[in-house]
């Protein structure tokens, strides 16, 4: 099968003709927006990746294909998926049971792609997990879904029943001697459960603090057994890679990273939503073409590219391709690839404060810099937003960015929180100074500046 993606064209001004582009993750989606049934899914080539894996490939060949495709984890960290799988113990001496776990926590503000996949194409996730489970010879799997994903939960539950009835799940899958059980688990809440090792604690009904590494999860994960954890979209990319081959997948992208990506745009645009496009599509194309451009009266100020833990990118740099490598050149990350726009009517300090309040609230409290530091940064930002800030506060905030940077905390929550703060201090200095000089938020209406400057502290959860 030959790729029909736009590989090779670095920049595509205007509206590209997307007819005929391969969209392996969306292929089975229904036009009416309802979740694809088993029938829909199979009609669009579904479960052929699993058939090929079980019928033609050895487990290690599946892992090799995924490794060769260059697929990188779509949860945001971008680790090589095949690389991770290849560290799982395999062969007659490997310990059992082994587990495959899907991270469907999707609780980071500004992330909304997994909901799209789970709502529209639940069998794709199941097939991806089956292929992964075969590759690492796992015995059981869990789909960890966040609380509040009631509709996606119902879709996946229905799809699991369909798949089991059709012989794709359970004992002797597709008549082979390989068996695999897959369970759906609904989280009881908290953002830290999205951290992969904390998720394993949550699945065990332990307090979901992150775990120390090493050991890595592929050595000692769920119940201290070898475990692969991948994001929803990562699993969803797998079936077509195994079906069509690594070279086919690599040919789908604009940039060197290969494949397609579920991108999303939210904010003051004409058509917010998710769309599957070649990896490396620029932010400009996503905003101006696929999301229909800004709403009248709103101008783009900056982009939060892929969740609250990714650094703002200023409007002047949106021609950068959205992939793992290129986003680093604008001092940010792709993250989840679902972007939220900062428009010219919205206070950048208020937006940053909102993010930091979230991280402070969701810190699990295990390590001191995160537990204490995030509260303090949110407090400082709140003071500035309400007009009580000083220029010294900006130095103090910059100090915290260093203090809670990479490798100084137990997990990546606090370093993630520092990314939008670092970018805000770098990009919105004038706004900070304007708040401090005028003693109020310039974006708030004159008479109620202080009252409306920021979202009030949230109420208590019972």
């Amino acid at each position: 099968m030959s790729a029909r993606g736009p590989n090779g064209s670095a920049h595509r001004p205007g509206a590209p003709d997307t007819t005929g582009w391969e969209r392996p993750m969306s292929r089975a989606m229904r036009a009416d927006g309802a979740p694809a049934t088993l029938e829909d899914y199979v009609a669009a080539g579904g479960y052929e990746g699993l058939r090929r894996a079980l019928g033609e490939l050895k487990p290690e060949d599946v892992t090799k294909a995924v490794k060769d495709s260059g697929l990188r984890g779509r949860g945001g960290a971008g680790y090589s998926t095949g690389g991770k799988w290849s560290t799982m113990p395999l062969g007659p001496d490997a310990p059992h049971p082994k587990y495959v776990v899907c991270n469907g926590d999707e609780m980071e503000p500004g992330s909304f792609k997994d909901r799209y996949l789970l709502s529209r194409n639940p069998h794709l996730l199941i097939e991806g997990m089956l292929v992964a489970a075969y590759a690492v010879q796992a015995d059981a799997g869990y789909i960890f879904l966040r609380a509040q994903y009631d509709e996606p939960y119902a879709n996946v539950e229905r799809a699991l029943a369909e798949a089991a009835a059709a012989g794709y799940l359970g004992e002797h899958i597709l008549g082979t001697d390989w068996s695999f059980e897959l369970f759906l688990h609904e989280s009881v809440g908290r953002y830290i459960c999205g951290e992969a090792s904390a998720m394993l604690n949550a699945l065990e009904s332990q307090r979901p603090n992150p775990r120390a590494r090493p050991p890595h999860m592929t050595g000692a994960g769920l119940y201290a057994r070898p475990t692969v954890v991948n994001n929803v979209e990562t699993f969803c990319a797998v079936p077509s890679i195994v079906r069509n081959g690594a070279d086919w997948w690599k040919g789908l992208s604009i940039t060197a990273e290969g494949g397609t990506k579920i991108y999303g745009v939210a904010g003051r645009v004409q058509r917010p939503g998710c769309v599957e496009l070649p990896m490396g599509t620029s932010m400009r194309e996503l905003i101006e073409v696929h999301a229909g451009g800004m709403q009248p009266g709103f101008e783009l100020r900056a982009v939060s590219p892929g969740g609250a833990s990714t650094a703002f990118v200023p409007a002047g740099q949106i021609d950068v391709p959205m992939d793992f490598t290129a986003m680093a050149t604008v001092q940010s990350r792709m993250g989840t690839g679902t972007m939220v726009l900062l428009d010219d009517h919205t206070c950048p300090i208020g937006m940053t404060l909102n993010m930091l309040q979230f991280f402070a609230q969701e810190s699990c409290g295990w390590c001191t810099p995160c537990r204490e530091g995030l509260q303090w940064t949110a407090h400082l930002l709140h003071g500035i937003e309400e007009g009580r800030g000083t220029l010294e506060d900006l130095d103090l905030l910059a100090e915290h960015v260093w203090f809670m940077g990479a490798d100084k905390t137990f997990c990546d929550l606090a370093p993630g929180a520092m990314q939008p703060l670092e970018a805000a201090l770098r990009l919105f200095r004038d706004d900070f100074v304007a708040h401090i000089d005028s003693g109020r938020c310039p974006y708030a209406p004159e008479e109620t500046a202080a009252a409306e400057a920021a979202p009030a502290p949230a109420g208590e959860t019972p």
Partner: protein
Amino acid sequence: MSLTDEERRELEELLPHYPDRRAAADSALRALQRRRRWLSDESLADLGEFLGMSVAELDSLATFANMLFRQPVGRHVVLLCDSFACWSLGYDGLRAEVEARLGVATGGTTPDGRFTLLPIVCLGACDRGPAMMVDADLHGPVAPGGVGAILEDYA
């Protein structure tokens, strides 16, 4: 109070999903909350007996999770997304309207026990912001003018 036969049956069905009873605790807490609306001390004691866990262990799980309620809530729980996408798309106005309609501040329960209004972090519906949930239903984008019609559907 002790588990009803129906409650016990539902909890028994959860157990095969996990290698031991203790690992089923989060799911069991959630399942029992669905039936009893919130988790009283008695509910934790009932579950503790069923799972072979202490009330303190269950309480440590329940108080860490934002979707397990240790205080009474109304018949319907309204979750208002307060994260940055919804915030930039009109959260303040939406919150003011919902609070005015219900006559309670965020965190409160209406005197008739019909609604509890809670803040929630990002619902993964940024492209539909400002978003809110009532029970299992996602609504968005919600204009302040549309709040009344949404709430009417939940008796």
